[in-house]
């Protein structure tokens, strides 16, 4: 069962209730203008934020919970991994702090405790503890206008398409996150383009872990291939030298 969040940008009034609910649920301290932050509102203490766009458009930013997450495929110790609900969660006791996940994520989501001597990666976990117990995430529960809702991914996609069809001209005809980077569990419908949420305006539909898959599959064959080739060469060279020596001996 794949759970998802659908955010309807046209319904968001920018009230920050989701942000406040997230902070409260996860016990985050108040945020300050740290020099380490990107100015999109996300930080080690803010797992979700409201990005303000021109003409009173408010876009909630959070981890997209990719179906094939780049962060999880990059993590060398599987600290970031996907649950059966399609939620990408973080195991702090496994993390070694390499921050490769931050490099890999196409949406620039994971943040870091730069000011702590024992730092961890910080990102939305779709309130896994709540979802596991059959509750909905704190942020969707808090939203006063139902701009952001929680449900099964399939149903939410159907709902998104229904809204787009029933209100012709209101939305861009696209469910953001349906196919991007292999599909994400956090979906958007919107009347403005949401390309700014990722590093490139139009992220491909190819899941990023696929880019490294070929190379990673070649690892073991390479290992033994190199060994075999080197062994062969060694044998050839030895043999040639031996023949040469025999030649010299028979001549001399």
């Amino acid at each position, binding site marked *: 069962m794949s759970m998802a969040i659908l955010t309807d940008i046209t319904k968001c009034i920018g009230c920050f209730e989701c942000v406040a609910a997230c902070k409260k649920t996860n016990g985050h301290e108040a945020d300050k203008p740290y*020099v380490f932050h990107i100015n999109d509102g996300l930080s080690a203490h803010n797992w979700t934020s409201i990005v303000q766009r021109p003409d009173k458009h408010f876009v909630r930013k959070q981890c997209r919970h990719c179906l094939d997450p780049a962060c999880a495929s990059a993590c060398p110790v599987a600290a970031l991994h996907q649950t059966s609900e399609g939620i990408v969660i973080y195991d702090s006791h496994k*993390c070694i702090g390499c921050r*490769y996940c931050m490099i890999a994520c196409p949406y*620039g989501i994971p943040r870091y405790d*730069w*000011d702590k001597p024992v730092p961890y990666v910080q990102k939305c976990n779709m309130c896994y503890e709540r979802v596991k117990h059959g509750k909905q995430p704190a942020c969707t529960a808090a939203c006063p206008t139902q701009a952001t809702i929680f449900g099964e991914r399939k149903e939410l996609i159907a709902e998104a398409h229904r809204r787009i069809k029933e209100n012709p001209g209101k939305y861009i005809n696209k469910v953001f996150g349906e196919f991007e980077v292999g599909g994400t569990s956090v979906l958007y419908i919107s009347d403005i383009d949401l390309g700014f949420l990722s590093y490139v305006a139009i992220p491909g539909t190819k899941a990023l872990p696929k880019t490294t898959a070929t190379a990673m599959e070649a690892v073991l064959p*390479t290992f033994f291939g190199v*060994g075999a080739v080197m062994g062969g060469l*060694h044998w050839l060279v030895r043999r040639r030298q031996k023949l040469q020596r025999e030649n010299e001996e028979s001549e001399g």
Partner: protein
Amino acid sequence: MNRVDVFKSVLWTLTGLAVATAITRFIFGLGAVSNLSDSTPWGIWKGLNVVPGIALAAGGFVVTAVIYVLKREEFHRYAKVAVLIAFLGYLSAATALVVELGLPWLVWQPVIYWQFHSALFEVSWCVMLYLGVLLLEFLPVPLEETSWFAGLRRFLTKYKLVLVFLGIMISCLHQSSLGTLFLITPEKLHPLWYSALLPIEFLVSAIAVGPLVVILGVLVICYMYRKEADRKTLSKLAYLGFIVTVIYGLIRFIDLGVNGKLPTIFDGSWQSTVFLIEIALMLVIPIVLLGIRKLRYSQAGLAIACFSAVIGLGLDRANIAGVMLQVPGSHYYPTIYEVFVSLGIVAGAIIVFLFCVEHFKIWDVKWKDPRERAEYCPKFGLASDVWLGSPGVTERVKYSLIFVLSFALGFALMPQDRIESKGVEEITVQKARGGDTLFIDGNLDAFGTLFDHARHVDNLGQKESCIRCHHMNVPLDKESGCWECHSSMYTATDIFRHDWHASPNGAAIACDVCHEPPQERQKASAKKCRDCHVDLYADSTADTLDTYLAMSYVDAMHILCVDCHRWLASADTTRAALAQCPTCHTGSQPDYLKADMRGELRRPAPNHVMMPPAVLQVKEE
């Protein structure tokens, strides 16, 4: 002072600075000394020490492969140097990683938590294994100096070929996997560097430059210790580098051509300039100098070619692992402290290298007994007849002194304000100059609010209402402004002035008044502010100031607004909107701010939600 002394003094200085920085980093976190940030999670420690360091250490497996697998005995004399350079290269990369990782004490965790899809998992396994292999390969050299462990030495020498094979297999894997690391960032890495062939390019370029690093190492030792280099074998080795460099150039340019990226090279952007520099250093100069036989056999030609190739490869790796991986909106440049660590780790490796050169049989002729050299003759102090002890000891004393001094200097240079502020932009609050309509945006997130002072005065009941906001402890205190205690914009500040309270020119209060005997004189047991200043608080606040800290200005102000608005909203249901954030934070700014805050917005998003602490309850009237 001779060449060696000067060089070593510089090395020890750098090491001292690096150690001081590293200690600070472990106590206060990465943010205290580095400019690493959410937009630039990898800085020069990864981009200059780890990734290029591993590439440049490839000489170990290439040279041993040539010697032991292809049986080219003429290079045998350089086997140990090559292995040593590789070992130290990996060791310095591993050291840099320890400083760089967020949780370095868990660096071994890939051993127990497996993740086969991660290139980094594979790299970390290989690096750990290869470090072990290199150690075993090199161990016979120091063991030669002693009669202990003779059995171990014989064993290692006997099974050298196994180690060499293992080394080659492991190296090929992780040299290429280092390239795989960056395959997952097609959208971030500049197209001139991104390529599906990155793993192959990484491997081939490492094989090309590896031997050149060894040659450079040999040339440097010969220069420093005034020895004659054996140019003939070195040039032969360089020829191998030349051939692989040509292959690498072909792969790289054919790949660029096939993907139609060739025009990008000349588009005039700064990235294309960097690319051209990189190509000149890594391909053009070495290929020209090493391709021409005469130049290849000249010391200068060889040295320049190797140096250029080394710098070029370093630049290539640094570009891929950092410079060209920057995301929009990041303006990373390393702090001086990051540079300290970066250089200090390399310096440390070179110190160990020189130590081995001086004490072990690194290439088959053992170095002359160092004590026989002129500069190791007995030394005398300036007063001319004070003997400073045996030469070895003087050396040690001198370098220890240099290290300790630079270590202390390093601590003196640590960024105090940066460490204390924990990365918060430090802003001291100034006295307000007034103005009837203020744009308040304490955290500069463009989600501020237009505060209409006149309207508040009207609505709240003219002059009598001043005290509802200014100041909380009227009427006894009419003098102090909020900013005097809440003096920092974002951080809580200590407002108890011990010196003034105790001083005869101040309040001249005797110690015992606040620190009542027989208690020990400590902060915890001392009197609290409110024990004397009974009028310090507004009635409405539950805050006790027992920590002697005044909250930050933005928190204080915001809580003031929120308190009153909540109370008004609860008192009058028709005005419930007052308690909602967007009522004030409308997202619109005054015109004079729009120029740089609208459109893409200078700071495109709201950063900070200041939640009023739960203890602050609105007092019912």
